[in-house]
């Protein structure tokens, strides 16, 4: 774990693996279930894996509360990390941050990987862009996120349950209203000029796969891979298939 002091934020960054550098931006839920994915990534890249402010258990400064703040924080981190451009890979909430970074500045980004990213709403005002998880019964919300075996909180430790509550708190903190999106992001997606790999579970009940198709139309050098019978977290539900696509896609090829 390395600590970086950036813009009055103390950021703990786990560094693991060897290879080309990758910044991995985690999704909103279930860090311990996402862990095997991070370890797989480390077999192919040198992975920098920060924990977002707030999600890390530390109260962010009072003026740090928007998705813009996270984007600038990680752009500052990239400026500090490596002299060469890095792969930025983000899942869900992390994917949203990745897009926000890339529309601002791609100088230090050589490729962008996006697993079912939140952040854009392309439907009309009566359309729900993302499932309203907090208005759904726990079982229904869990089925939106995972297509296969249902989530069982009974298998979570007390600390893991507290982490679930904390993660939900900070997802709300950054993105309650507008709900999980930045209304101005969609119109600037053409500024993402680096090769971009979108990955999506075809049974995603939280962020519909159709959004992935729409994003490929707006992000210039992008491709989409869908994963059968996977929900919102294909990195949990079909890890091997996702790794196969990821290591054969633009995040691996560029610069080799």
């Amino acid at each position, binding site marked *: 774990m390395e600590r970086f002091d950036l813009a009055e934020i103390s950021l703990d960054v786990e560094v693991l693996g060897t290879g080309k550098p990758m910044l991995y931006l985690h999704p909103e839920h279930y860090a311990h279930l996402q862990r095997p994915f991070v370890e797989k990534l480390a077999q192919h890249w040198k992975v920098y894996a920060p924990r977002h402010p707030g999600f890390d258990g530390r109260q962010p400064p009072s003026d740090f509360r928007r998705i813009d703040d996270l984007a600038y924080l990680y752009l500052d981190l990239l400026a500090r990390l490596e002299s060469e451009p890095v792969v930025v890979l983000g899942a869900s909430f992390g994917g949203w941050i990745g897009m926000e970074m890339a529309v601002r500045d791609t100088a230090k980004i050589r490729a962008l990987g996006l697993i079912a990213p939140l952040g854009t709403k392309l439907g009309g005002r009566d359309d729900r862009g993302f499932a309203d998880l907090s*208005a759904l019964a*726990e079982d229904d919300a869990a089925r939106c996120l995972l297509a296969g075996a249902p989530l069982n909180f009974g298998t*979570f430790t007390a600390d893991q349950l507290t982490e679930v509550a904390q993660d939900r708190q900070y997802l709300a903190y950054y993105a309650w209203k507008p709900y999980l999106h930045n209304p101005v992001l969609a119109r600037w997606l053409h500024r993402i000029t680096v090769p971009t790999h979108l990955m999506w579970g075809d049974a995603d009940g939280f962020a519909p796969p159709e959004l992935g198709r729409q994003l490929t139309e707006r992000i210039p050098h992008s491709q989409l891979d869908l994963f059968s019978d996977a929900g919102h977290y294909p990195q949990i539900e079909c890890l091997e298939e996702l790794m196969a696509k990821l290591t054969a896609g633009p995040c691996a090829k560029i610069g080799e």
Partner: protein
Amino acid sequence: MDVWHFSEMAYHPAWDELGNSLRNVVPSSVYDPKVGADLYHRYLDEWALCDELGINIMVNEHHTTATCATSVCTIPMAILARETKNVRLLCLGMPIANRMDAVRVAEEYAMLDVISRGRLEMGFVKGAPFEVSPANSNPATLMERFWEAHDLILKALSSHDGPFNWEGEHFQYRQVNVWPRPYQTPHPPVWMTVASPGSAMAVGEKGYVMASLNTGYANTPTIFDSYRKGAEASGHVVTKDRFAYLAMVGVGETEEEGRRRASQILDYSRTTPRTAAQFWFPPGYTSNEVTAQKLHNRGPLMIPLRDGGEFEMQTGSVDEFIDAGIAFAGTPDTVFEQICEFNEHVGGLGHLLMMGQGGHLSHEDTVANLTLFSKEVLPRLKGL
């Protein structure tokens, strides 16, 4: 001790049909406006009666629910500000973190205070967790928005020299200039509700009237003590008029009649748990440790008894609610004794917020309940 009559203007005709979910997701197709109109007028008549009986008036608001048809607390209060002449009028209250226009809150309160010729008491409340969804207010920043709204509303009510600027985190105005100014100076008295010692201390630090709602025999003393600590630490002299407590009250000519009335009013408590589980714990609304416990183990809502036992809120008997200090019920003598005991137990109570109507209690029973209470109990409480 002052007494206030409170009703939620329940739309109880839909309760059976709606089963175990009375809030948030219930379709308004189950609401018959003709029945609702009759109910509104009936409840307003009962409050108006209080002006003759010497019982002050309390209203609140909830949203998207058949348990409380008062969706805007200042609307019944506006009617009562004109219709009554004597008693004081308490909105408890305005969920100011869920109201996106704080200046509008100041305007509504100022108008009410002027129309009532200075009889308004202003409640600022956090609001129940299931209120977050209808308001779409961010639960993770709820309390910071609450306190910013509080600061802005009080400044808006007490500034009389033309516009001022307010560009905070949650509210932005460049020309705040509230008309009319309130009748009372510098503004109507402030009340806040609490449910825990932590929030009680914060209210104590401000020196406001603190209302503890249904917190019962077991929990209320700790809450009152916490208020005293906060108040004394901030240099406030703590008098009993700083303490209010909400309970269900049923009085009758016989024990049986008083208990029957209380039991019907207690459907207010019994319907509270009939809320879909996911609306109880919006993200960040309560501590993550508490939310985490509920993720895995969602047991029924329980209420502590005096002997250390507990009972289910949704099915509790009148005896259990009386033991818990949530209901005062029986003949006037019994009710007076129960209130005296509670008053002593908590170290002095300045205000009894009496739920004198609730659920299926009929208009005739409500009038009889309020009238008997005003004649036989209220005069004795004045001496406490």
